[in-house]
């Protein structure tokens, strides 16, 4: 899959360059080529290739190293002249994106709310469903946007730790649900990468609705496009169940973290409440155009998912070969137990000194577990060399894992 994408990209290049370089620079390079072909030939040369070691490998923020697909880039390029129009006057309109998302998810337009990334949706869900007396329930560790907003408002947060496999422990969350305003489930969970099954979530939601009938249940599926069949989207459940909202983003598999676009989907009543908090004209016209174009190119997302899965398998194995276990990650990042050798902070600092940026601390697991986002295969080949160096294969330990 990634091969075809690479050769596709190379097809636009007029000069021979290494597949590695192409893949690492990805679509930006492709765009450069297109612009060169179309624009005046001003002797514009190739971007200078930096000597090895000077370009930092950034695998710290769960970004897509290749950026958006060709369709999205084309759509953005075509958007420049319309930068003057508000998203409600542009073509496509933000409303058109809502309609398209509704259609692709078997809903209606009033089931969809757009966000500046899914971040806006997570924060607004806190404001819609919580209050000084209605707390947040979530696993620990998980993505910190809801809890950050709740803390800002001075509202209560109740957490239960992930289970032994670092999965969201739904059974442990349930006793915390009484009187809750919002229950947040990140699936696959960031930073642990683990997935809980569709059946487990469905059963959990039914229980929550008995205990706290008015609570919002926000299921964050930011990484769903990177998951295998162990993951089931709760979008159908959200459409069928009051106050259940699924949040999705174009920041991950769609490669548009810098474009800031996401959406929430649920029953019309819940979405109406969310929409009240939506910042007017929140999504930019380039983002709308890119999102629309991307949605019309599902093959690209399949390829991106396969590309990531191959890198994920490679990287998990590299750690295993060094004697370190990772969780069963379904995201574009992995979560690895390096505790017998060093803390996440020590690992991060040592890697940074060698030009590799890995994830921050994720308390309460920061003494033992480190999160590594997945770059390109080429980047991860280099990065795992650095890891090997930094972690100094733990041959003198009792662990026989990964053999």
């Amino acid at each position, binding site marked *: 899959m990634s091969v075809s994408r690479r050769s596709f990209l190379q097809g636009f290049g007029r000069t021979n360059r290494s597949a590695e370089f192409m893949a690492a620079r990805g679509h930006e390079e492709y765009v450069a080529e297109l612009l060169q072909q179309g624009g005046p030939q001003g002797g514009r040369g190739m971007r200078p290739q930096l000597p090895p070691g000077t370009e930092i490998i950034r695998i710290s923020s769960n970004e897509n190293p290749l950026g958006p697909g060709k369709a999205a880039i084309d759509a953005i390029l075509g958007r*420049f002249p319309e930068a003057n129009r508000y*998203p409600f006057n542009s073509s496509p*309109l933000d409303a058109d994106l809502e309609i398209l998302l509704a259609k692709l998810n078997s809903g209606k337009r009033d089931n969809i709310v757009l966000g500046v990334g899914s971040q806006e949706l997570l924060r607004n869900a806190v404001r819609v469903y919580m209050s000084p007396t209605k707390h947040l329930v979530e696993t620990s560790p998980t993505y910190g946007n809801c809890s950050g907003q709740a803390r800002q408002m001075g509202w209560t947060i109740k957490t239960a730790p992930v289970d032994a496999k670092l999965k969201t422990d739904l059974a442990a969350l349930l006793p915390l649900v009484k009187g809750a305003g919002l229950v947040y489930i990140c699936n696959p969970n960031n930073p642990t990468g683990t997935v809980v099954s569709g059946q487990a979530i469905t059963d959990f939601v039914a229980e929550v609705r008995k205990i706290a009938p008015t609570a919002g249940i926000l299921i964050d599926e930011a990484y769903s496009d990177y998951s295998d069949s162990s993951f089931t989207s709760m979008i159908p459940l959200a459409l069928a169940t009051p106050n259940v909202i699924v949040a999705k983003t174009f920041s991950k598999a769609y490669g548009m973290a810098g474009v800031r676009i996401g959406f929430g989907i649920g029953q019309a009543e819940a979405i109406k409440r969310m929409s009240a908090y939506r910042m*007017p004209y929140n999504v930019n016209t380039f983002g709308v155009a890119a999102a629309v174009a991307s949605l019309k190119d599902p093959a690209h997302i399949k390829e991106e998912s396969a590309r990531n899965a191959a890198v994920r398998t490679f990287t998990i194995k590299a750690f295993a070969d060094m004697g370190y276990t990772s969780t069963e990650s379904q995201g574009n990042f992995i979560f690895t137990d390096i505790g017998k050798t060093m803390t996440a902070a020590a690992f991060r600092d040592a890697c940074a000194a060698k030009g590799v940026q890995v994830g921050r601390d994720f308390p309460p697991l920061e003494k033992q577990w480190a999160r590594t986002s997945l770059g390109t295969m080429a980047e991860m080949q280099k990065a795992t060399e650095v890891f090997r160096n930094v972690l100094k294969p733990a041959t003198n330990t009792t662990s026989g894992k990964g053999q």
Partner: protein
Amino acid sequence: MALSRRKFVQTVGVGAGAALSSNIWGRGRENSVWSAFEPDLQAVERGMICIASNENPVGPGKAVLDALSKLLEGGATPGRYSGQMGELTSAIASTMKVKPENVILGEGSTQILRSATQVFTSKTKPLVGTIPTYEECSGYAELIGNPVKGVSLDSEFKIDLDKMAAAAKGAGLVFYCNPNNPTATYVGAKATREFLTKMISTSPETTILVDEAYFDYVTNPDHETHIPFALEHPQIIVARTFSKAYGMAGLRQGYAVAHPDTIKKLQDWDRAGGTSTLNVFGMAAATVAIQQGPAFLTNERDRNKAVRDMVAKWFADRGMKATDGQANFMFVNIGTPAKAFREACRAKGVIVARDFPPFEKTHCRITLGTMEEMTKAVAVFGDVLAKKTPAAA
């Protein structure tokens, strides 16, 4: 100026295979991705003249369009979360001759307006604004359950400063939109300065948000930004946007300038409560836009003024009074309900603005398109109004 800008943007993107039709400016970009969803398409039909939303009809400057092209070409990473906010903040600070700690960025000025309302109003400290004005602050105050006090305009549709000062005593936030949207009127710099000074002494706990969204279009000689004043007085915030004269409404960039203590209050809220990340295209474009130099804004102001003068004269010649418009839109007494006028215009390919109570029975807000667009638009207005009212008073 306008012409060359239009020509340029008609050719950009061709290399990307983007099918830009010559009609792109009229709002009707053919969008092939839509073919499969055509029946549900909401987008405005091709060829419509959209003069409803106070957008800049000619778009961003050439430097900005160049920067956007180079952005993708030069290794922009739309797949990455951006760290460009510092660069944009510095560019704004140096252009406006303030320090970076005087600047906060926002998703358009919308985010600034909402954050200020969040931070400075409360259950006991209302929001005060004119009726009508831009509704972002009042809408948000209502959303979070904080009181809103409205103050009627004076007979010239300007902010009534005495009434405003009286109503604003003890308020949490005064929204001072100048030029005012939708009435397009501008309170002179001297009178505004006196009002602000008076407010600081009579109601020091009140913050005043001076929205200068349309400031770059003001031609009244008595005009001046209140940014320098804001630097000295923690009670004053000046909001600016890239959506108007800079032609970047779709890119969602705005900012505010204020005393560092005031900026910090807004930032503390935004960090956890707002949109902490702006989009990479918008930030790159804004960084270049603000550094285009004064000639860009002068040219844009002149271009807009020529159109405004033409449209104002057209209405005046027909006995219809417009306010003293100082923005890129006009507020005109058409002597007939805005709704009927709007619907009739739309049927003839011209989209004008929605109702603005309490003046919706007589007044319509009309955004100024290009001269070409407005020449066509006034012909439509002539048709529509001739049928409606023989002679509006």
